[in-house]
C-alpha cells in the first residue's frame, strides 16, 4: 500500500461511502421488517419459539451475572460508604446503579453475546444453505416468517431479563450487605425505597432496555440476513453482531441517560 495523499483520500472516501451504504441498507431493511411486524402478531407461536431460544436460554447467565454484580457493588460500596459513616445508604447506591444503568446495559451486552450472536449465525446459515431463498420461492416471506419473530423476541426478552438482572443484583447486595456485613435490614430497604423512584428510575430503566432490545434485535437479524453466504461470512457476521450491538448499546445508553437523567439532580 502506497501512502500517497490521493490513495489515502480514496480509501478514506471508500470507507465512508461503504459505511453509509450499509447504514442505508440497514434503514431500508428495518423499514421492511417493521412493515411485516403486524403479521407476526397474528401467529404468536412463532415468537414463543424465539422467546425460548433468546430469553429462556439467557436466563441463567443473566441471573447469575446480576447476583455477582450486585455482590461486588455491595463490597465496593460498603468500603467507600463506611469512610463517611453512612453504610445504610448501601441499598440506595446498589439499587440506583442497577436499575438505572447496570441492569439494562449489562443484560443487553450479555444478551448480545449469548442470544443475538446465535440468531445471526442461524439466519446466516439459513441464507448460506438457500433456506431463505427456498422459503421465498414457496411464497412465504422470510422477513415475516424468520426475521420478524426473532426481532420481536429480543424486544420482549430484554426488559424482562434486565429486570431479573437488577432484582438478582439487589438480592446479591442484600446477602453481602445485610447478611454478611451486618448492615441494618430495615435501613437497607427503607433508604432504598425512599430514594428509588418508580417512574424516574424503574420505568426509565425498562424504557432503556426496550430501546436496547430494538437495537440489538435489529442488528442481529440484519447481520444474519446480509451475511456473506459462506462459512467465513457467517462467522464474520456473528462477530460483527456482538461488536456492533455492544457499541450501539453503550452509545444509546449515553444518549438515553442524558435525555432521561440530566438536570434531574
Amino acid at each position, binding site marked *: 500500500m502506497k501512502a500517497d495523499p490521493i490513495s489515502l483520500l480514496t480509501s478514506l472516501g471508500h470507507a465512508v461511502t461503504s459505511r453509509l451504504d450499509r447504514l442505508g441498507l440497514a434503514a431500508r431493511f428495518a423499514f421492511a421488517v417493521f412493515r411485516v411486524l403486524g403479521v407476526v402478531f397474528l401467529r404468536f407461536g412463532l415468537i414463543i419459539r424465539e422467546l425460548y431460544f433468546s430469553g429462556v436460554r439467557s436466563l441463567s447467565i443473566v441471573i447469575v451475572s446480576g447476583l455477582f454484580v450486585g455482590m461486588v457493588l455491595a463490597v465496593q460500596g460498603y468500603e467507600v460508604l463506611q469512610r463517611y459513616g453512612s453504610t445504610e445508604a448501601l441499598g440506595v447506591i446498589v439499587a440506583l446503579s442497577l436499575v438505572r444503568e447496570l441492569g439494562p446495559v449489562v443484560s443487553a451486552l450479555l444478551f448480545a453475546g449469548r442470544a443475538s450472536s446465535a440468531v445471526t449465525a442461524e439466519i446466516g*446459515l*439459513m441464507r448460506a*444453505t*438457500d*433456506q431463505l*431463498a*427456498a*422459503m*421465498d*420461492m*414457496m*411464497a*412465504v*416471506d422470510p422477513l415475516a*416468517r424468520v426475521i420478524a419473530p426473532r426481532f420481536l423476541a429480543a424486544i420482549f426478552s430484554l426488559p424482562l431479563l434486565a429486570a431479573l438482572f437488577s432484582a438478582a443484583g439487589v438480592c446479591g447486595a442484600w446477602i453481602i450487605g445485610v447478611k454478611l456485613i451486618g448492615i441494618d435490614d430495615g435501613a437497607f430497604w427503607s433508604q432504598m425505597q425512599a430514594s428509588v423512584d418508580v417512574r424516574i428510575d424503574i420505568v426509565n430503566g425498562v424504557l432503556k432496555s426496550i430501546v436496547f432490545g430494538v437495537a440489538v434485535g435489529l442488528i442481529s437479524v440484519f447481520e444474519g440476513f446480509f451475511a456473506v453466504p459462506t462459512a467465513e461470512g457467517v462467522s464474520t457476521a456473528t462477530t460483527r453482531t456482538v461488536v456492533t450491538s455492544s457499541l450501539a448499546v453503550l452509545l444509546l445508553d449515553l444518549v438515553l441517560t442524558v435525555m432521561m437523567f440530566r438536570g434531574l439532580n
Partner: protein
Amino acid sequence: MSERQDIIRIENVRFAYGERTILDDLSLTIRRGEIVAIMGASGGGKTTLLGLIGGRLTPSVGRVFVEDQNVPTLSKSALYALRRRIGMLFQFGALFTDLSVFENVAFPYREQTDLSEDMIRTLVLMKLEAVGLRGAAHLMPSELSGGMARRVALARAVTLDPSIMLYDEPFTGLDPISVGIIGRLIKRLNAALGMTSIIVTHDLNETLRLADRVVVLSAGKVYCDLAPDDIRVSTDPFIRQFADGLPDGPVPFHYPARDYVGDLLAS
C-alpha cells in the same frame, strides 16, 4: 392457440451484476408440459435464468412472461400468488434444518392452506411415499444422505402441485444411483402432475435421457436449442467439447493471462 401453449416466454432479457453482464439479449420460449434442460459453462447465467423466472431477480432490460404475467412488474402479492404455482428444487435441497422431514414437507401446507392436521398428515405421507421416504418422516435433515435430502426437497417442492418446476442442478454431488433416482422422479412427476420442468444441470448423460429439449447458453445468449438426439450427433465444436468433456476448445482451459514465458521471466 399455439400462443396459449407458451407457459414461459423470455424476451430480449439483459441481466448484469454490476459491470459483469450475465445474460445479454436472451430470448427463450418454453411450452407447457416440456422438460427443458439448460446447460452451459459455470457462471454462464443458468441459475440466473431460474431467478428471473421465479421473480427473485429483475432483468435490467426485457420481459419475462410466466403464464402470461410479466414477472418483473408484478407486485409482491401477485408474485407470491404466482409462486404458489411454481416449485423449485435448490442445489443442495435447502431443507429447513430445524424441522423434521415431515415438517419440511408439511411446511407449504401449514403456511399456504387451512387444511386440518389429519389432512396434512395424509398429504405429506403421500408425497413422501412418492419419493420413497415415508419411513424417514421422523428424521431430521442432518440425518439424511445427500440423495435422500434431495428427494425430500423434491417432495416439498411439489406439495402444492405446481404447474412449473424449476430444478437448480439437481444431480450435483450425488452418487450415480441417486442421480438415476432423481432423474426418474423428475420425469415421472412431470408426467403425473402435468407440470413443465426446467432443469439447470451439468450432467449431460442424465439430461439427454430426460429432457425434451436441451438449451445451451454461451456468452449470455442461447447458443443452441436442440433435441437430445441432435446433441448426440452434433459436430459443433462447442457442443462436442461439452458433450465429450474436453478440457480445451471454444471454452478455453486457461484463464486469460499474459504470455506464459514472459510472465515467468518477468521477475
